[in-house]
């Protein structure tokens, strides 16, 4: 495995944990699957479609998202938005993320 491949693999692992956070943050605004992916890409978060769509379904099953089928531009689409429970959990996840960020910053400054 080349150095670049190793780096890509580690980056992928690092991003995997952050995906749920990114999706929940993005879904404070209503989206359907494809528009959510485009919004995430615009924000700099690449995610495979085969990962994203099942992920939002799982989050919905867990009660973190609400969804409804609606017609838009003569096409039926399933729209998702964060639920009340999702909002509460999101706040805690954001805190966790910030605290982790801080810790990493601290470690990296100490070792520099």
């Amino acid at each position, binding site marked *: 495995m080349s150095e670049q491949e190793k780096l890509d693999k580690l980056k992928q692992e690092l991003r995997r944990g952050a995906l749920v956070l990114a999706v929940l943050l993005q879904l404070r605004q209503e989206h359907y699957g*494809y528009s959510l992916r485009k919004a995430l890409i615009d924000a700099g978060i690449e995610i*495979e*479609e085969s990962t994203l*769509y099942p992920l939002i*379904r799982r989050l919905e099953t867990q009660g973190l998202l609400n969804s409804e089928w609606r017609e838009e531009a003569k*096409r039926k*689409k399933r729209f998702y938005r964060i639920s009340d429970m999702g909002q509460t959990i999101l706040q805690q996840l954001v805190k966790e993320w910030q605290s982790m960020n801080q810790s990493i910053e601290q470690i990296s400054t100490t070792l520099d």
Partner: protein
Amino acid sequence: MKLVENYLGEVASQLPQTDKEDIIAELGSIIEAKMDDITERSGTEPNETQVASILKEMGHPNKVAAQYGAQQYLIGPSLFHPYKKVLKLTVFAVVTIQLLVVLSSTIFTDVVRISAIGLLFHLASAALYTGFWVTVAFATMEYSGEKLDWFDKWEPLLLSNAKRIAATRENAISNVITDAVVFIWWNNWFGRDHDMPFTPNDFPVMATGVYDIVYWPINVLLITSLAFYTWQIVQCYWTKLRLQVAIIIDIVSVIVMGYMIQAGDLFALKVTDENAAIILDKVNFSVSVVLAVIIGFVLYDMYGHLKNWRKLAS
């Protein structure tokens, strides 16, 4: 479009029945939205190559369907290494016993009853049969391991406790599988009936007095050993008491099997028939060879127990 229909059909065929329709409707709507995007940009409907490229982005049907379900495997990473070890060990043991039986009976009776290719198939089927049961045992353990939280309940302090010594789960599993196979063989194939199951095939065989004497001791021994090593799979450590039990089981096994070998034939003919007598000699001899090989394995097992005993004593 046929391409999209076929793609969704492929995904649907691998989805659980409960959410199938909903998932397919959602995937269909996403594909439509992507096609609309192309139409908006180019002013024409997407051609087949463009649709194929959309489907490529969506992912392989198997991969997409798999992401919608829970991760599934027969034997997970925490058991895979011991599974490989036990599989190698048991397949090697079974194939060796089979090979020794065939070779020894051919050498000692001067009758070749199986061709080289036949022997290969015979050994391959024995290996497959063993592999199947080892896999079933580990798959069961994988499933029950999750239920019983074996891996969460383990006690690290046991590793440093002088009165206990860590045992390998592979050893316990090998013993359970071997005991189970011998138990089935002893009770099913031979049966308790003196007339023996060969009678319908006009092979008039009956069990001798030796068989009567050892039938129950062997069953008791096998059941004790099965229960003991099943418990060892869960506990996974040795104490002096447990090593004593294991060594006693080994010694009694060697005595019983040694008695069977020296006491003479397990089976006898009900009538006088020269051809049947030749075959019966071969059967009795093969049983003795199998017993001798099993004694070898038991002694090797006992050697391991004695080594652990010495570690605990020091």
